[in-house]
């Protein structure tokens, strides 16, 4: 009886720790950024200055950098991951299916710093010498595609990010595509539907909530990713005029400056950025949870 209680108490304490951690993070980040919040207020979000010498800090550049790089990365990754999911579940021969799935699951386990070092030493020269000049020559008439090929900058960072998140999104999409009962597919084929129509009208409607969950997973990875980005984004406090220019993200500014923050206000401003990042991921997860719940309910009712 006694041992029973001891075991229960330990299990209870563990659960309490798990519940308390997120709240403790929220409170700690708020307390640490309090100095910057009272100094700069909500205007921090709209100020482009980041001047450690004059002690004036604003978060707009890293916030925009985070939004730009995640958006570009996510749009590239979603297209690619979708193509892979369709290829593996609908097009490739069955004996290759499991091999490809295993490879993508292994790749999702590769740490982001590996993508970072590869980006810096291999991708940057290729972007600078081949890809960016090519884009400037052919798409240069559009303003955001026109600029100097630097190699290091927003586009390279977004590409590294998208390569990194593709395995996450595709693994999840493949899993849900495989959940679609084959009877559904076969019925549609029997009615004369093409592969495109089967995927568009049968597979995707059936798996909406799973696809959304995969995309959200990729988005949260991209938003907070530090190492894959810091190597190749250039870390410059400047709003990029075109997709090639160096800029900075919240995560990369933290990685570069946290240990160098000499004054309380400087450190507190960095914590303000952490707080914003935490808040954004929290909101995205909460909204997506709600959407996924709604979609699942809708799926249950319509199938």
């Amino acid at each position, binding site marked *: 009886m006694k041992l029973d209680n001891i075991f229960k108490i330990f299990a209870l304490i563990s659960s309490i720790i798990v519940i308390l951690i997120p709240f403790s*993070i929220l409170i700690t980040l708020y307390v640490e950024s309090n100095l910057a919040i009272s100094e700069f207020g909500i205007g921090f979000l709209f100020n482009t200055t980041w001047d450690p010498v004059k002690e004036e800090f604003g978060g707009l550049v890293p916030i925009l950098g985070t939004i730009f790089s995640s958006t570009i990365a996510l749009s590239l990754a979603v297209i690619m991951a979708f193509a892979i999911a369709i290829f593996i579940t609908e097009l490739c021969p069955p004996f290759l299916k499991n091999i490809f799935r295993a490879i993508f699951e292994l790749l999702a386990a590769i740490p982001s710093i590996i993508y970072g070092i590869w980006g810096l030493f291999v991708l940057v020269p290729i972007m600078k010498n081949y890809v960016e000049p090519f884009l400037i020559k052919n798409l240069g008439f559009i303003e955001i595609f026109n600029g100097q090929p630097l190699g290091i900058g927003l586009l390279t960072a977004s590409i590294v990010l998208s390569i990194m998140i593709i395995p996450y999104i595709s693994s999840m999409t493949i899993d849900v595509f495989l959940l679609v009962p084959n009877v559904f597919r076969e019925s549609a084929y029997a009615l004369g539907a093409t592969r495109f129509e089967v995927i568009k009208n049968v597979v995707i409607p059936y798996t909406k909530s799973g696809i959304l969950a995969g995309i959200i997973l990729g988005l949260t990875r991209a938003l*907070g990713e530090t190492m894959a980005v810091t190597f190749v984004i250039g870390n410059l406090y400047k709003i990029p005029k075109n997709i090639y220019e160096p800029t900075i993200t919240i995560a990369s500014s933290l990685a570069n400056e946290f240990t160098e923050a000499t004054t309380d206000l400087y450190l507190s401003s960095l914590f303000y950025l952490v707080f914003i990042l935490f808040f954004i991921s929290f909101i995205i997860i909460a909204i997506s949870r709600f959407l996924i719940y709604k979609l699942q309910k809708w799926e249950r009712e319509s199938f």
Partner: protein
Amino acid sequence: MGKRIFLDKLFVIFSLVFSFIVIFVLVWILKDVLIFGIKSINLDFFLEDPRPPGVEGGGLRNAVLGSLIITSIAIIISFPIALLSAVYINEYNHKISNIVRFLSDIMLSVPSIVIGAYAYALFVKPFKTFSAISGSIALAIISIPIILRMVDELIRLVPDATKEAAYSLGSPKWKVITKIVLSYIKVGILTSLILSFSRIFGETAPLLFTSFNNNMFEIDITKPMATLTVNIFVYAMSPYESWHRLAWSASFFIVIFVLLTSIISRILQKQH
């Protein structure tokens, strides 16, 4: 060719082309890491400590050991907490199970650098020194939800009839849990242990301002300690050729480690 057939063909070609681009790039990355790594790695990597900038040779003995120490301590902290709370929400108190699951999902998507900043505020700032243990705590916080969610899924697979049979023989609850529930899923628990270890072994961001870095050989966990990942970051950004080689060697070691652990856990899962 009708419009429908044309659309279908176009669609198939697009998904084939995009798939091959991605597979090509991912294989290319692996190839680069393996080739640059094999060229750079040698026995000195494991036996020697770093030399001053610009001096040829040297290794990352301190960082290999540092990574293993910091990751091991993290798992020692997180594993019991995650395991016991998974048990608690499934066997003792179903009312809080949804809250715990929801909060774990949130924690899974919190960027790891945020956890690093949190550990800095609680364990570095008050003691005015970077320390290996603060890095371990940051990694522990990252691994708790990973292990918790995996074990949670496993426990739900244990058939009620098996548990009820043990209860009907008069076993106390803690015995049913340890001898029946946990032993039923022990291979799965081992897999989750291996996977979470390899997952946080490659983390960099939470260590940048907790365990920081150290050029010396250090085993005192209250002092800053070198890790492979932080060294990759520092060395790759440096202008020295010999340091770049060390960065590639460290990347090679990490990739091999991660691939091996993934394969081992796959084999374990297959056998059961």
